């Protein structure tokens, strides 16, 4: 009986150490990945900053007037339509329902 208990304890300890070792390896890998992500994140931040600057409404309006002949127009919301699919049929309806006073 004693031998069984001792053997179980030893097996459990060894198993724990093995599992812990493997998790340590995983942790190391995670650490490495995180370390690799860090510069990528910083690079992504810089690229996003550049993108946000170049695609800012102010810049886009300038590009529009610089490269296109036609001006941007306002969208009339009453002309926007809503498409809904029902039983393989597409229904077209007004996006905004007209009220009594319109």
């Amino acid at each position, binding site marked *: 009986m004693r031998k069984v208990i001792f053997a179980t*304890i030893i097996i459990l300890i060894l198993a724990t150490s093995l599992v812990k070792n493997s998790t340590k390896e995983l942790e190391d890998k995670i650490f490495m990945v995180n370390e690799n992500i860090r510069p990528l994140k910083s690079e992504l*931040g810089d690229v996003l900053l550049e993108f946000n600057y170049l695609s800012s409404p102010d810049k886009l309006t300038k590009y529009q007037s610089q490269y296109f002949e036609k001006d941007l127009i306002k969208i*009339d919301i009453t002309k926007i339509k809503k498409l809904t699919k029902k039983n393989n049929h597409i229904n077209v309806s007004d996006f905004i329902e007209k009220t009594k006073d319109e």
Partner: protein
Amino acid sequence: MNDKKNNIILEEYEDEFSYKKSKTNLNIEFNRIAFIFFVFLIISIIYSIQLLHLGSVKKKVSNIKPLIIKKNYRADIVDRNGNYLVKTVSSIDIGINPIEVIDKKKLLINLKLIFPNKDYIKISKKLEKNKYFYLEKKITADNYEKIMMLGDKSIKSEEKLTRIYPQKNLFSHIIGQIDDDNKGISGLEKSFDKKLKKIKEPLKLTVDTDIQFLIREELIKFHSIFRSKGSTAILMNVNNGDIISMVSYPDFDLNKRETVNDVNFINRATKGVYELGSVFKTFTVAAGLEEGLIKTDTEFLNLEKRLKCGKNIISEYDKKIPSDLTVEQILIRSGNIGSVRIGQKLEIEKLKLFLEKIGVLSKIDFDIEEVGEPIPFRWGKCKLATVSFGHGITTTPLQLAKGYAIITNGGFEIKPSLVQKKLEDNQKQKRIIKKGVSKQINEILRKIVTTKEGTAGFANIRGFEVGGKTGTAEKAIVGGYTRKAKVNTFASIFPTSKPKYVMVVLLDEPKTSKDYIYKYKNKIGSYKGTPFNTAGWTSVEVAGKIIEKIGPILATKYIEN
């Protein structure tokens, strides 16, 4: 004695002849050694496990600890769609410690090769003073490499953080500025200074860059048309207080890092305290409805054309206004005397309590510290009369927007916010105004925009069900008011059937325009020139143009909101 000796002999005898017992003794010794080894083995295994994973244990502990404020760290700020409004990038400043300079002449020659455009007479004088000074702030990578290659001990490099504002002027009043020591000195940079130094993720705001841009564009356009001193516009969600846009014009480019001392550059939306005029009449009517003292069809008969209260004479702006008006007509036609009568019915306490409840009387608790405080006053009979139609009472445009949001959203308390709240915070809604008041108010506000008698016809943009109230107020000067300087305001909500947004447009000291062509919304035709310097002909037109532009974006982009 003899007995004892015999006993000993017997024991020795037993040991010699008992083979089994002798074996047991040897076993005990062997087991002891094995046991000690076993204990050592366990200890060594446990220790090795701890040793192997000491790093991970430490890591967990450090995760629990609060984040340490780093000197050179500041979180970015993004808008509601994740677009950068502020980004931190690190930069290097180059300084010189004259005490450590060995050969001044040689150093100056070398510096001249790297920075040929600098004033070297000044630099030479600075070197003489023996006091540390900055040679170049935010040095380029090329020049940094060149200057470090000199290997001069007196040249010092300091890593500093720089805030980049890709939207330039667009959010100048909201974001604010920081000083050279990474300390917020205005706007969100100041009020969220500690948080920005702690949080890992960017601070997410409620504002929308595209909407902000479009509103600012319109304000700039009309700034030149009406030649106003300044202007402001606030767009807020009436149901949760999220500010989608808050523009105050004139503004400034945050990237230039200039010290702004001109009062005209204040944040008019939050810091500007104004007498806003007739926009307050909606509050008087709402208070009357809340108290059950009036209904929208309650008639006020034989209303005087002029009222005298102390030294002041209260008269109607519109001379054609009838003497018999319902509550609804009083608000639609913006009747001063009718509003005074409603105010008198309410009495001081009830009107005061209502105005306090919707948060227009005291300083607002807001995300930025630059907020104005409404000027306190002593209530009396004459004050009650003037406050009823929005005179002799001041507040900020932000508080006006908040008040309109509460009286139109079903009577729920809201807290205007620039920073996105947690979902659960948005759901805690407390009703502070009786159910049903909003519906009645919203219907009247809609009629102000759609009917012939209403003062805000230019805001009747198809598809958005705009409702609102105008307010034209003369600016107070020493000893009275001046007709030359006005504050024209339009507080609008849309769509009136189920309000989502409140928008306040304020023009500070606008002038009439001779050439501007108005296009009627409630009838066919157009009109050239501004006939009257009133909100109906100025702020309403601006608000209409803004809604025309931003409306489709709001309706389609925030369809689920």
